[in-house]
């Protein structure tokens, strides 16, 4: 979800000036100019192509991109919502969606979807549901991410272990992690990092536990605890660096520098993995190993319309276009993210033939949507401080989980009271 944040911060400033007042704004014929809020500079070229294609279909509507770096995207958006200067159409994520929908600042799309027959069913169902609130659809997905098991074939060969595949369970991961760990080379078999989207949530769901269900926290649930124990156990046994070490170099960096043999990571990182020569050569990817059940976390961004927009009809035309096949194909060709439109992902798969990227798409079948509620950030912020010690090899994951469950329930109760 926070991919390329550094890049976003560093590149956005010059791009901001490059985009606002850009060539899409040359509309003199009395047409409508929409503003489109997004945060990822890497996706600007692709978006410009989509906008050009849209323009061909709707010559009277032009779209101007408003790029805000990730670090300030949400505060800026909230402030501009209050001031009435928010973009007409903008990017939304699961963490923030319900807060916006519940406060009535997003335009309901269900009616439009029905009358214009927007191909919602061609997008992953779990993802579409993420952007519905109390039975009304407010956002249409544009892309998605799942988590896969990235592994280093060279390290596997050295240890004489066969590569991970669809048959792998947590036991296989544990066995392999033990074999792959080499303290003298400071190589670890696995990176059991404290990261909610990439490690904690997949492990909880893989153990058949849950993060959030019917307004209640699942962290106190025995199965959820079992999932987290799978992670902290790796730290306790020395098969994974402790969290205290991964504060300084995160699991992803350790995987890049071949100091970690297996790592759970996002599909969106494929491009960056591909840019590392060693990993392009001997990096592999497989579906997540099975715990009590198969699971991965799916998340993706959606396009939403501001309820305060004065150009809602045009905005809907644009959002409708972006939920269709043509826009998805352009996005996939640009290769940054996986388009959520079914059957348009081929271009992405082909862009990195050395990696078995198809697993990321297969995993949709059993993917669990990213858990969220009205004020997700509040209970998400409880996680790292409470779980930190257990992830650093200090033990006590069971009591930490129960404590987290209790505090999260309290936060959820407060959320409902508002």
């Amino acid at each position, binding site marked *: 979800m926070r991919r390329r944040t550094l890049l976003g911060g560093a590149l956005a400033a010059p791009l901001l000036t490059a985009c606002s007042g850009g060539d899409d704004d040359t509309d003199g014929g009395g047409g409508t100019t929409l503003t489109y809020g997004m945060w990822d500079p890497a996706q600007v070229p692709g978006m410009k192509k989509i906008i050009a294609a849209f323009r061909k279909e709707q010559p009277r509507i032009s779209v101007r991109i408003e790029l805000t770096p990730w670090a300030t995207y949400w505060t800026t958006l909230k402030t501009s919502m209050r001031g009435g200067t928010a973009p007409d159409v903008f990017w939304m994520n699961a963490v923030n969606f319900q807060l916006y929908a519940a406060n009535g600042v997003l335009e309901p799309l269900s009616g439009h979807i029905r009358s214009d027959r927007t191909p919602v069913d061609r997008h992953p169902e779990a993802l579409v549901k993420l952007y519905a609130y109390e039975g009304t659809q407010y956002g249409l997905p544009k892309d998605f991410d799942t988590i896969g098991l990235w592994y280093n074939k060279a390290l596997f060969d050295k240890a004489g272990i066969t590569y991970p595949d669809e048959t792998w369970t947590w036991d296989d991961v544990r066995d392999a992690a033990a074999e792959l760990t080499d303290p003298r080379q400071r190589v670890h078999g696995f990176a059991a990092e404290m*990261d909610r989207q990439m490690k904690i949530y997949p492990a909880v769901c893989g153990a058949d536990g849950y993060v959030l269900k019917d307004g209640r926290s699942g962290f106190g649930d025995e199965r959820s605890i079992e999932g987290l124990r799978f992670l902290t156990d790796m730290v306790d046994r020395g098969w994974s660096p402790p*969290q*205290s*070490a991964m*504060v*300084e170099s995160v699991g992803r960096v350790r995987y890049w520098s071949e100091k970690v043999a297996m790592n759970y990571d996002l599909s969106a990182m494929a491009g960056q993995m591909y840019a590392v020569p060693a990993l392009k050569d001997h990096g592999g990817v497989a579906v997540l190993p099975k715990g009590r059940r198969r699971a991965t976390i799916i998340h993706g961004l959606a396009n939403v319309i501001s309820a305060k927009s004065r150009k809602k009809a045009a905005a809907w035309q644009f959002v409708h276009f972006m939920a269709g096949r043509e826009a998805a194909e352009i996005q996939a060709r640009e290769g940054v993210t996986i388009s959520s439109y079914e059957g348009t992902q081929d271009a992405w798969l082909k862009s990195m033939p050395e990696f078995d990227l198809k697993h990321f798409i297969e995993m949709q079948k059993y993917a669990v949507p990213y858990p969220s509620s009205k004020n997700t950030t*509040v209970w998400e*912020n409880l996680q790292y401080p409470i779980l*930190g010690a257990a992830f650093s090899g200090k033990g006590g994951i069971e009591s930490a989980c129960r404590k987290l469950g209790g505090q999260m329930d309290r936060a959820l109760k407060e959320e409902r009271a508002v």
Partner: protein
Amino acid sequence: MSVFPATAAAKAKERRASEAAPRPGSRNQRAAYWFIAPLGIGFALFYFWPLLQTFYFSFTEFGAFGGHTFIGTDNYARVIQDVTVWQALVNTLIYSVIGLTALPIAIVIASLLNRRGLRGVSVYRALYFVPFVTLPVAVGLVWNWLYNGDFGLLNEILGWFGVDRHYWVSDPSTAVYAIGTVMVWSTTGYYLIIFMAGIKGIPQDYYEAAELDGAGALRRFFTITLPLLSPTIFFASVICMINSLQTFDLIYIMMGEKNPAIGDTQSVVGLFYKWAFIENAQGAAAALAFLLMVVIAALTYLQFRLQKRWVHYA
């Protein structure tokens, strides 16, 4: 508040100035009001008005997208009941105690730099001052590299003496002190400049007389320098205390989000930032900010009360 210390000499000058002040209502005095007007307006607009607003907002609940409702003292109840607030307060007090150690260090260096005949004083002064003018973000990043558990310089050096490698900023037992050390490192230069000026204000005759009487360097330091520097030390300690109580950026940069020691290092202002800008609890954050102001005011008052016991105005 002035950057320069109220040294004994300056105090005396001030007294003389006030004796010679023009009578109320004179033309001179009206001119004075005009001169301080820009500052006064700035203070009212950017300090006093936000203060009143914060106080008001601390009794309200904010909507995520504008509007607020009056909810009485609920925010204060929340602040008082929240364990993380107390933890942050304790951490913040630890930072201020650690931060104060910059003062003795600065005094010792300042008195060494003030030795007669020492060459290249301005070079030293500049070198010591550089950390203070460097952005806390840059300081934090560099120190994170030095502290790094896997390849940091600190562990490397300790390794020569057989000390095991340690994750300084992510182990809850050392993180506060690791950050505190950086705070001291980056502020010592500032106090050094203040103390050097303060020492310069001490008449050289005292030292010469003491030397004739056979007092050694240490004796001169403790019986002349320290007592006569006490007004400066008092000023510096008040500033230092306030700065440490408001500390935020260095911790924010050095800790990151997933640090297991985050609860053990978070300052009150850090918590304020989290509430106000991430968790959408502006009302409670305002209450927290107001309480911090009360704490700072109380501690500063205490310092002013205690100064009578140890500060000598010559």
